């Protein structure tokens, strides 16, 4: 065994002629537990796969239905745009929060309190129906000054823009906190060193703080991305044709609620698992996993090895 030569006892005994054979430590309890869990897993899988109530043929029929696939595309685009917009806005908010200027930090604090405090569903409904409160949007000098720009609210607010505004504003509050946590995890000495080298503001942020903060930010960031992917399903309330909504429209007519929900969930599951794998790769690249800077290849080799005696 690979570990044998590290064993001091074995080193000591190896001198004598009749050295007892070296047997790797047995993990009988672990093996038993793995068998039990595996057994239960197979049972569960079989109970689901062989259950006619799931109507798997209907699931298969709708899995690649063009309406479902269109919805899937909408969901993925929404998720991507939300994460990009919210990351930019979140970074600004995190920097504002850390500013020593009282106005900037208080505005950031208030923003976080407000947008994390109001349910996302309400925010989506609110933005979509903004025209009920403000029929026109006017940009101009306040207190009776000249109007620079005026537009009908409903010409700006479509289901798409309402959904994006609501999702980005809401998500940026969460990302701001993740970015702030990442930045404060970087040792103060790093900042001081950067300053000593003559780095300032943006350069210090880009070259010194963010690369190190990233290591702490990746796991919660991946978490948020998964939450957003599934959270976009809330836009069905404003009739934006996302993945869940597309399924709801079909079963609204055919009443095949359960199999269609299963088909929709399979797509969510596929992409969540995909994101999880990507997150794992990024984490290992950044060397943040608790197993140190293990390479992706080494990770899979270890994960797929049956014996794993060490």
């Amino acid at each position, binding site marked *: 065994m690979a570990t044998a030569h590290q064993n001091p006892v074995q080193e000591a005994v190896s001198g004598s002629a009749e050295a007892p054979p070296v047997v790797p430590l047995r993990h009988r309890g672990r093996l038993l537990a793995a*068998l039990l869990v595996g*057994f239960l897993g*197979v*049972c569960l899988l*079989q109970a689901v796969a062989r259950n006619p*109530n799931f109507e798997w043929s209907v699931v298969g029929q709708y899995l690649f239905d063009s309406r479902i696939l269109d919805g899937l595309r909408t969901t993925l685009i929404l998720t991507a745009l939300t994460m990009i917009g919210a990351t930019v806005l979140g970074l600004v908010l995190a920097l504002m929060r850390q500013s020593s200027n009282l106005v900037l930090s208080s505005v950031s604090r208030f923003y976080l309190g407000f947008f994390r405090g109001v349910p996302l569903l309400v925010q989506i409904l609110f933005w979509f*129906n903004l025209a009920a409160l403000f029929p026109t949007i006017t940009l101009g000098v306040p207190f009776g000054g000249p109007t620079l720009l005026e537009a009908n609210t409903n010409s700006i607010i479509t289901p798409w823009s309402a959904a994006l505004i609501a999702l980005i504003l809401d998500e940026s509050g969460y990302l701001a906190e993740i970015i702030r946590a990442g930045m404060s995890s970087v040792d103060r000495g790093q900042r001081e060193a950067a300053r000593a080298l003559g780095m300032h503001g943006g350069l210090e942020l880009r070259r010194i703080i963010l690369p190190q903060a990233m290591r702490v930010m990746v796991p919660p960031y991946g978490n948020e991305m998964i939450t957003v992917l599934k959270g976009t399903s809330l836009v069905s309330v404003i*009739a934006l044709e996302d993945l869940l909504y597309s399924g709801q429209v079909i079963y609204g007519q055919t*009443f095949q609620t359960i199999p269609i929900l299963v088909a929709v969930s399979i797509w969510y599951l596929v992409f969540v698992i995909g994101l999880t794998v990507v997150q794992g790769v990024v984490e290992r690249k950044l060397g943040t996993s608790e197993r140190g800077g293990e390479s992706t290849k080494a990770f899979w080799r270890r994960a797929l090895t049956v014996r794993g005696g060490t």
Partner: protein
Amino acid sequence: MRKALLGVATLVALALTVVGCGSGSDSTSSSAGSTESADNGTLTIGVNLALKPWGFIENGQNTGINVEFGEVLAEHLGMEAEIKPVTIDGMIPGLEANRYDIVLATATDNPEREEQIDFVDYAEGASRVLAATGNASKYTTLADLCGATVGVDRGSVNQIILEEQKCPGGDSVSVQLFGDDNASALALRSGQVDAMASDSALVGLLAKEQPDEFELTEIVYESGLIGATLPKGSEILDEVAKATQATMDSGELEKIFSKWGSPEAALTKAKFNPES
């Protein structure tokens, strides 16, 4: 050696699996029928309570056409009615899981749906188009909705009728589907949609209660038969059909519909599938 042990263990586990589990999933057909409480003389009725005047909550009390019909129905069945709220998304799984003996959600009967659940029809649906105050005169026929955006309840018969509306010059009615009529009404109020199409009693009430916001158009059309829904294989289907017929013969059903302003909607013969 270790690998061999693991291999044997895996085989044993697989063998156990084939023998041991799988008993729970096969007994599917036996559960179809009724809720547990039905055996104790309680009829569990799911009612959509976001559908005024069909079902809604007033002063903490469930009320509306479907609630009153459900209570009369239970009476004829010699059972106690228990009203439970239900949503569009929850009604079919709820029936399949025997959470409700029967659901009254103003669902329109059609052959495609009859493959999933059973219907006992008791009313004739009528729809009407509602517009923002001051705009109603723009729309007098369904063809006038070409090029307009119309909000409807997703899954409702209005969705199909408007989506299939023929328009000149490749135009169409832009149909926006919402989860319930409240969302459609809010979108109409904010101008996100030009009109909404729904049950005529429902939009009639909206126009009456909020005349500054909503105005009825002259577009009225038939929208098919409305039925009580039961899970496939329900033991009480025949009894429910008989009891529904009894509420018609006694005039109770018409009385309920009269009270809520649409006596013409009550059917006089309970039609149900599978027709025996």
